[in-house]
């Protein structure tokens, strides 16, 4: 199309480059709506608004599972023994070091709130199972302690703590 022999750019070359550039820019910009549509739509985002959970019915040593944004959230009312176990472990020995205090809200130390999705490949760990009085993932044998921290198995990280706060002593808002 363009003549390779001409040493200097000509008006003709400029026109071709400009047209090609316009086509390329137009094409790339046009791609955006086609990609963006894959993201969650407005109703999905709206449905992911914070939820409130009443903790009053959960007795010590029990846990409940609630769903927020399609994810199971474990809310565990830990016994004194579970809390003590979690705090007795030397933090440096953990695969993903974190203190138990950093994973709960101050003053509500018995309440553990974690996203119940194994950090290995996304299965749901079972509460109150495994060797650490915490969670056991049946898929590939990852074991979490009573603070939701990874202790053994292929999972690389602790169970994440979702954003939440106490709105009263017996009520939390997740999200």
């Amino acid at each position: 199309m363009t003549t390779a022999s001409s040493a200097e750019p000509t008006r003709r070359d400029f026109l071709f480059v400009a047209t090609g550039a316009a086509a390329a820019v137009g094409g790339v910009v046009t791609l955006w709506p086609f990609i963006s549509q894959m993201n969650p739509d407005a109703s999905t985002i709206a449905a992911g608004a914070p939820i409130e959970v009443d903790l009053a019915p959960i007795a010590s040593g029990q846990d409940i599972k609630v769903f927020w944004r399609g994810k199971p959230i474990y809310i565990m009312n830990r016994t004194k023994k579970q809390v003590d176990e979690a705090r007795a472990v030397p933090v440096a020995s953990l695969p993903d070091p974190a203190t138990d205090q950093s994973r709960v809200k101050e003053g509500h130390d018995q309440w553990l709130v974690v996203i119940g999705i194994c950090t290995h490949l996304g299965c749901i760990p079972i509460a109150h199972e495994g060797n650490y009085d915490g969670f056991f993932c049946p898929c590939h044998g990852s074991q979490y302690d009573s603070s939701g921290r990874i202790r053994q198995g292929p999972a690389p990280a602790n169970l994440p703590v979702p954003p939440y706060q106490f709105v009263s002593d017996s009520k939390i808002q997740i999200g």
Partner: protein
Amino acid sequence: MSGPSDYQPTNPAVKWIERRLPIFGLMHSSFVAYPTPRNLNYWWTFGAILSMMLGVQIVTGVILAMHYTPEASVAFRSVESIVRDVNYGWLLRNMHASGASMFFLAVYVHMFRGLYYGSYKEPREVLWILGVIIYLLMMATGFMGYVLPWGQMSFWGATVITNLFSAVPYVGDSIVTLLWGGYSVGNPTLNRFFSLHYLLPFVIAGVVVLHVWALHVAGQNNPAGVEAKTEKDTVPFTPYATIKDGFGVSCFLLFFAWFIFYMPNYLGDADNYIPANPGVTPAHIVPEWYYLPFYAILRSIPNKLAGVTAMFAAIIVLAFLPWLDSARTRSSRYRPLAKQFFWIFVVVCVLLGYLGAQPPEGIYVIAGRILTFCYFAYFLILLPLLSRIEKPRPIPNSIADDVLAKYGSKSAVSTVIVLALAGALFAGSAQNARAEEEATPPSQKWSFAGPFGTFDRGAMQRGLKVYKEVCSACHALSYIAFRNLADPGGPGYTAAQATAFAGEYKIKDGPNDQGEMFERPGRPADYFPSPFPNEQAARAANGGALPPDLSLITKARSYERGFPKFVFDFFSTFQEQGPNYVDAILQGFEDKPPAGVTIPEGSYYNKYFPGHSIKMPKPLSDGQVTFDDGSPATVAQYAKDVTTFLMWAAEPHMEARKRLGLQVFVFLIIFAGLMYFTKKKVWADAH
């Protein structure tokens, strides 16, 4: 035609593949080195335009299918949620819906071009027949796609078209049951139509490959209708045809974008914004504009089987065209009689299309019969006869001679005029289907009208108040969530205001841990609650009439604009029939019906309601709602404000649509300009 490729790759990787699969050579010989007649005019760019449209339809369709639910009870709502909630969903849906019309428009131009220049003649018969097959597949695909939104026209279109097969003797009813998968059009029908609507475009793409293959074997026809003989007659496909097609495509995109961004509902039917109702048929069943000529043929024959046969025959006859027209001269340029009759035939098709949208009564029926006769006579009598008696003018010796002769572009101009007129006539006639005896609602001045129109925020907020205090007693607004009140382009509330507004409502939720339903304050994600728990309760409370959901009311109502107004509407982007109608209904109540009009007990007289007898009592009176911003508390003000609010409710992304439209137009105009000059530069050394 192109023979073995002389393609010699230099890149070692390309060489390696080429030895094992000569795909680069195939591409090179088909789309680069392929010799194309040098005298092709712009009518030949429609092949590229059609390829692009097929691509657009497949890409947007695959995406829409990611969000659409083919289930009768939620299909309509899922289309609305695409338009309202999915990122750029409104854009993708407009592209796909208008894209279907653009695809057909382009295919009609392509077909008429083939007809005019004799592109079906030896050795291109198979090429032409493949084209007819593509056209048939397109019709089937388009029809099934139109069913998917599951509106009133979708449902009744599906019913009417599937019933065509009941005309088959003996087994007709069994065929129809088979098509439906039930005793009537229903969920199984919708499911299979969705499946087939997804499948057929790929079948089309396959046949298009055959079509292009056949084209590249026989070589392109050209306006002179003489075969290319020497090198001087042709130019390589790339860059010459590529750049010319590119310019044609960019011009077509401008036209396409006008529909996407400014006239998305111009070619649609307002009734399709009413969810499918198996109990009520719309007053006029009108197919999409591209089927209208065949629909007119169907209706003009008073026998069921004969009518259906004639309709299908009208398409099938095209496949026999290469043998019906045996004239040796291809191009109508050199056939003085055939040329004239071609244009008459174009007019016949356009008029048939117009009649297809008219009610089947009186003069329309007679005209339909005459034109149906003309349609078939053109193929079965005229063309065979002309090829025997017509004395063609001398054709040029070669394409190169034709180029030197510089044939005038008079015919191109007249074609443009005829096509523009035809398009406008079709488009407008598709909207014609309304009872005519009613007074036409007066055109109001709307803030959201025109290509730069935006919603008047104050009017929307006042309108919301009117809806909440008056309309919501009977009418649902179930497609609008409280969160939408804070959306950009909406009534302009903050997220906190929308949350507070939601909190004033009681929403039924549950079941709770005890298994019981309970009420809680509304949240932004909740939708406006409906005043009645179900349709039966709504009817029982309203004298048997169902107060319609108002979410889409301004798009679901329309009235006839008439010729020539609808032609101007295309350019002025007038789409405010719905708002005018809603406004007029709210103000059209009269205490005493005019003399000679009796209104049944429990109904009220409304000047603008079809049939004048409306079950809704006069909803608004002066002073009923007070505004804090000092706007007058009059019915006229209420009507205008609530209509503005409802227009936003029907199309919450209208402002985004027009804004993006402006950007797209600026880009496309610049791009088309660049393409034009590039094309001129490239072709400069070919002449």
